[in-house]
């Protein structure tokens, strides 16, 4: 199935028809339209009409097929809220329409003594985990939720970390100790209780087996646990258990300056390197009102695509290893090494360069970079051909992955699946084409799509994506614009060094901007990008400070893992392993 999505030209023309339709239908129940820099209408909705409004938006005429994000903000310490409805905690719902290429954000105000909302799981199935996360992080309850329990923090945890009155640092606490009793208690708490999940222990004449896959399992790609309810080899049901990799990146953003948070973004999707910096710096630049130079944009695109290739190579190696092929990982890691030689020469680091800056990049391309990039571009195509011949045309790989864990576009959208996993179902939704950012509109490349949405297509599509990335890098090499690598703007951080040593005033400004960091005007902004694993976005709320008031990081792997049970019921254990390999997730991208 091939579905065409509208071109970017249809974006943002005239007043938003959705907002008008909503105003007509719900009148004063739509409390306010908030002006932000998110690029989408932000509407405050009364709590009692929320479900109706969401149902209306999901309906065919409005066609918001995907619940893209759902999270909350603790507003109690926010000082710049003029004109906004009174609220202690605000929950926001970000809906995305692929067919209309439009988004809308709904906000609901809650008071501290009544933190409850109706659950929207019946409308959007992927709201399940998002609502659990909001409960875990903010302590907001969702009435009618099928299983409202902690998702990121351990079950024995007290408090809700993203509340403003919760401590942030581990060192504000007593030092960690693990006693024999504590060890037993924690392990008991992690024990799976089938009844709590509404599972039966036995079926007519057979008893089900409950198998823990993880938290440490070679095929689980990190600290991820999956509890399987098995009848022989058949998976009756399964429950993914995440949170073993929660590094509190969102809380961290509330205490790092706008500039010094950049290294933390690298470690979100840790195979994506500078690709992670991109949505963050783009969102900050929107807040600061910086337009970066053409050269900076092109350098950013080139390095991001380099990391897309190294990430997809890692995927390919581990995906095939999960299927039992030992050698591919040795080949793909050799190529990764070639990629890192280029990345290291340009950025000075391998995995987490943190190389993008607010207003540009850290430094200019070094002399002789063209030769290195060209060497990589010459090396890769024949390797990709070899991978296709030796691996994707391999009969065993085909047997193991064709029609395994397959889903269609409608199902993918309902579960919030994005990126290559969505495109494997035959939909050509790629933000680089549909909503170009950082100058992607100037590049000539294609969007590879799959047909069956199965584990095979998810693997195949990534090989093709690497080819397209090589094409983009080739164009960067051929047409690298001349000019500055940093924008000439007062909020560019760190500021250009030439302006620092003129007189004491410039030195003071420089010093303040480097030590305290830039101060950004109160507003809200957001940027989505097509990251290595799907759509990654940063939703920043500034309160006119040197730090972010709230940073919401929406990562693609979170909904991808949530989709596993729906897909695997009735499948077999080896199919699950093939599916896990084909999703391409890292746990830092799930738990943040």
């Amino acid at each position, binding site marked *: 199935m091939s579905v065409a999505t509208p071109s970017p030209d249809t974006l943002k023309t005239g007043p938003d028809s959705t907002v008008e339709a909503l105003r007509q239908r719900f009148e004063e129940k739509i409390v306010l339209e908030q002006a932000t820099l998110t690029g989408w209408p932000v509407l405050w909705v009364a709590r009692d009409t929320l479900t109706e409004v969401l149902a209306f938006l999901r309906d065919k005429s409005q066609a918001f097929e995907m619940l893209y994000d759902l999270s909350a903000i603790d507003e109690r310490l926010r000082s710049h809220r003029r004109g906004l409805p009174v609220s202690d905690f605000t929950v926001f719902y970000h809906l995305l329409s692929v067919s209309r290429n439009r988004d809308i954000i709904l906000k609901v105000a809650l008071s501290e003594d009544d933190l409850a909302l109706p659950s929207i799981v019946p409308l959007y199935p992927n709201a399940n985990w998002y609502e659990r996360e909001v409960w875990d992080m903010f302590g907001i309850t969702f009435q009618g939720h099928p299983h409202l329990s902690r998702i*990121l*923090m*351990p079950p024995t945890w007290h408090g809700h*970390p993203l509340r403003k009155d*919760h*401590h*942030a*640092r*581990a*060192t504000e*606490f007593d*030092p*960690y*100790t*693990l*006693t*024999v*009793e*504590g*060890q037993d208690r*924690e*392990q008991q708490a*992690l024990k799976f209780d089938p009844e709590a999940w509404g599972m039966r222990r036995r079926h007519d004449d057979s008893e089900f087996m409950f198998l823990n896959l993880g*938290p*440490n399992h*070679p095929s689980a790609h*990190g*600290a991820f646990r999956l509890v399987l309810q098995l009848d022989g080899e058949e998976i009756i049901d399964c429950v993914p258990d995440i*949170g*073993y*990799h*929660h*590094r*509190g990146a969102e*809380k*961290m953003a509330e205490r790092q300056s706008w500039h010094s948070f950049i*290294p*933390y973004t690298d*470690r979100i999707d*840790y*195979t994506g390197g500078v690709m992670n910096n991109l949505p963050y710096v783009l969102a900050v630049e929107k807040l600061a009102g910086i337009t970066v130079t053409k050269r900076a944009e092109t350098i950013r695109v080139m390095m991001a695509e380099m990391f897309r290739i190294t990430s997809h190579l*890692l995927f390919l190696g581990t995906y095939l290893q999960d299927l039992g092929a030992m050698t591919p*990982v*040795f080949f793909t*890691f*050799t190529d*990764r*090494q070639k990629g890192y030689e280029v990345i290291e*020469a340009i950025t000075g680091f*391998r*995995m*987490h360069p943190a190389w993008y800056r607010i207003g540009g990049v850290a430094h200019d391309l*070094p*002399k*002789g970079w063209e*030769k*290195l990039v060209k060497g990589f571009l010459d090396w890769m195509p024949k390797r990709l051909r070899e991978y296709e011949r030796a691996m994707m045309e391999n009969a065993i790989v085909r047997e193991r992955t064709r029609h395994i864990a397959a889903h269609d576009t409608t199902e993918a959208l309902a579960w919030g699946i994005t990126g290559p996993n969505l495109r494997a179902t035959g939909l050509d939704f790629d933000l680089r084409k549909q909503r170009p950012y950082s100058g992607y509109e100037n590049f000539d490349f294609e969007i590879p799509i799959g047909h069956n949405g199965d584990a095979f297509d998810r693997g195949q599509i990534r090989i093709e994506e690497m080819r397209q990335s090589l094409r983009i890098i080739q164009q960067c090499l051929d047409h690298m614009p001349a000019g500055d690598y940093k924008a000439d703007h007062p909020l560019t951080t760190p500021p250009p060094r030439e302006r620092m040593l003129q007189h004491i005033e410039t030195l003071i400004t420089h010093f303040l901007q480097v030590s305290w960091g830039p101060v950004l005007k109160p507003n809200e902004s957001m940027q989505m990008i097509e990251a290595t694993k799907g759509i990654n976005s940063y939703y920043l709320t500034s309160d006119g400070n040197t730090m972010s008031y709230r940073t919401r990081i929406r990562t693609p792997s979170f909904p991808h893992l949530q989709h596993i049970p729906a897909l695997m019921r009735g499948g077999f254990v080896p199919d699950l392993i093939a599916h896990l390999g084909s999703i391409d997730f*890292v*746990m*830092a991208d799930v738990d943040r």
Partner: protein
Amino acid sequence: MAYTLTRATDAIATEDSRYPLNEQRRVEDPVKQQIHRNVFTGKLEEVLHSAVNWGRKNSLWPYNFGLSCCYVEMTTAFTAPHDIARFGAEVIRASPRQADFMVIAGTCFLKMAPVIQQLYDQMLEPKWVISMGSCANSGGMYDIYSVVQGVDKFLPVDVYIPGCPPRPEAFLHGLQLLQDSIQEERRPLSWVVGDQGVYRAEMPSQREKHREQRIQATELRTPDSI
């Protein structure tokens, strides 16, 4: 050389005893003490220890255990460009019971700590722990509510590898340091022969060893050329 002695305590650990459970104390090299008593068996024991340790250090089987970013660099060390097989440590084991050492490659999370302890307990002696990367060493840049500030809060660590993440070469260096340390160990040669304590050599600090040389570097290469 100074040694740390660890004895498997017979007493059952009480509920409130903290990990790591074993008590350690500093002692002299046990082999050197024997020399004073009997030159012949002392020398024989030294040769035996040396031979056994040589075998141990050159066939270290790592446990396939990874937490986060560092694990990717650790895996890189296992593949062709870095080829850890040169040091006899390429046989990754998926079960802790078959593994010789565990690399804490990544952040030690609060939710994961009891699991890590469980896996460590399942490994059989002799066993070692390498702490790889800033997070495992000290919490690193994640001084945050959900992260244990260093895996040595509950595990006995043999080698610390700095970096965020350390390069594969740094991991290989760490492995070689562990091998050096294993060469100097005195473990019971059998469960019926001699002293049953584990004597670990206190190896020199790399920072102190290389300080003189490192502070000689006063000019760094500019990033302007490749």
